[in-house]
């Protein structure tokens, strides 16, 4: 029972993440010159920060073993994946294929699943997407003169 409660606790994972970030920072900072207190090198401040982060992470983690806090709510993976993949696709496609393709890919991937596959819905969706692309291109490229490649 207790183990289950711990593994459900927000603080347990939060503490763990902070400790990992802290350890990572210190390992990385060891490669930079430490210097002295009077003349700090590039490694001085990161080591202080990393150490303190580990300390806070430990306190948070240890507390979570005894004190119960709010338990973790489930994470809906679908929007997380769709939005993230959409954005990554935008980043990959923008320079080689231009804004129109990248934009259409971004909004199509990210809104997968939020439309019903019926003719009327699909027509509405197409109108909305084309409108968005025209708006984005018109506003940013032609209106504000930002340098984007528009077409493939």
């Amino acid at each position, binding site marked *: 029972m207790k183990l289950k409660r711990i593994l459900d606790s927000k603080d347990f994972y939060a503490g763990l993440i902070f400790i990992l970030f802290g350890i990572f920072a210190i390992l990385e900072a060891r490669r930079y010159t430490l210097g002295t207190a009077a003349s700090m090198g590039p490694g001085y401040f990161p080591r202080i920060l990393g150490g303190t*982060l580990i300390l806070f992470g430990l306190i948070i983690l240890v507390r979570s073993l005894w004190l119960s806090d709010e338990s973790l709510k489930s994470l*809906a993976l679908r929007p997380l994946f769709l939005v993230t993949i959409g954005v990554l696709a935008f980043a990959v496609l923008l320079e080689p294929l231009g804004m129109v393709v990248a934009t259409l890919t971004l909004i199509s991937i990210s809104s997968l699943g939020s439309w019903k596959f019926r003719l009327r819905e699909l027509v509405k969706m197409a109108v909305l997407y084309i409108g968005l692309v025209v708006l984005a291109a018109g506003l940013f490229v032609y209106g504000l003169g930002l340098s984007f490649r528009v077409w493939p």
Partner: protein
Amino acid sequence: MDVFNNLILGFSVALTPMNLLYCLIGVLLGTLVGVLPGIGALATIAMLLPITFKLPPVTSLIMLAGIYYGAQYGGSTTSILVNIPGEATSVVTCLDGYAMARQGRAGPALSIAALGSFFAGCVATVIIVLFGPPLAEVALKFGQAEYFSLMVLGLVGSVVLARGSLLKAFAMVFLGLLLGLVGTDVYTGTPRFNFGIYELADGIGFVTIGMGLFGFAEIIANLEQKEKREVFTSNLQRLMPTRADLKASWRAVLRGTAVGSLLGILPGGGALLGSYASYAVEKKVAADPSRFGRGAIEGVAGPESANNAGAQTSFIPLLSLGIPGNAVMALMLGAIMIQGIAPGPQVVTEQPELFWGLIASMWIGNLMLVVLNLPLIGIWVRLLTVPYRVLYPAILLFCCIGVYSTNNSRVDVVLAAGFGVLGIIFLKLGCEPAPLMLAFILGPMMEEALRRAMLLSHGNPAIFFTRPISLAFLLSAAFLLVLIIAPTLRRKREEVF
């Protein structure tokens, strides 16, 4: 009078057609994103930063500031009509505002929110005029030690005023400071934490991190929830509050303005905290606290005045010290630096058009908002009926274009996506991202101040305690901490949030 001449200068700057136009664009956009749940002032400002590259400094700041306080006006509309906060700062307005709408009193609730905000905006503008310049004069005498301690105070403030666990907020600060160090060490040219990625040589862009943590993460979080909206528009004919409404709420407006202004100036403060604190105050002083949550007009008037006052007074530390007090101000700082202006106390005297023009524009912007807001409410309501599944692809697209065009870098977009995932994880774990964002901006400044101060003192940390102003900042920070750890206040804090 010096102030008088300066104000004339300010208005002569703010009243030029171009600045008026951008002020109008700013407040309208601000109201729009305020009304729309799922997109906040922070993400909007980050999105629009690339656009401001081509504008003069004053004009761009006028527009960006307008977005921030305009959003405070817009946020209340959604809270009152839909029971969903349009903006985080309008969360408490839902309680009594929506209750009023259900009783058919949406009109008076909306108008008292707008009128209260306008009053608060005017007072906050006067406060900036009165306190900004003297504070800058004091700050001109600050050395590196004072700046370091001031930033410590700011970060402690942001932790104390953050919602949720103090320990996690502190950890977020240290993580933010670390993220701020990514890039090239200014003294030695050593690349730090860049993992051989060329684009990280200048560090992580604040637009990138802000858009990830606040833009993308917010969209994902919104998509997780099922949409259920019920807009109360039937009884919108009567907009104006009755005499009894006004009588019941004018004291709340005054108190809200005072509470909001004070909490806005505090390091780590801003619009958010004021609205919560004001609601708590109103409930405390009310003769019959049980009315709250059932349509008490004070519960709308107080918090809505407070959030607007706080949004504006939080410009004081930014403009007169060059230190941002919250995440939105951190973006403003970025906007100032992009324009090639070194932020700091010298801005008040060296860039008077910027300082006074911005202040004058705030008053003008508030006037625009109160005049435009009520007649335009029909349009905002119609926007609310647009479902989120139609809106979010557009928001997402503008976010991506905003991140990309800051440096024309695809790596920034990929990083922002990564921070979006991190933001969702933090959200799930109850870690507030606002202190991280502030620490991220302050990180490099803090390291520089620390290194210089320690160089001056030959490595003796006593320098932070022997210089009186620096000591005062550190004592204030310690005082804040003691206050918050003390059990009675801790309960209060939990009550407020």
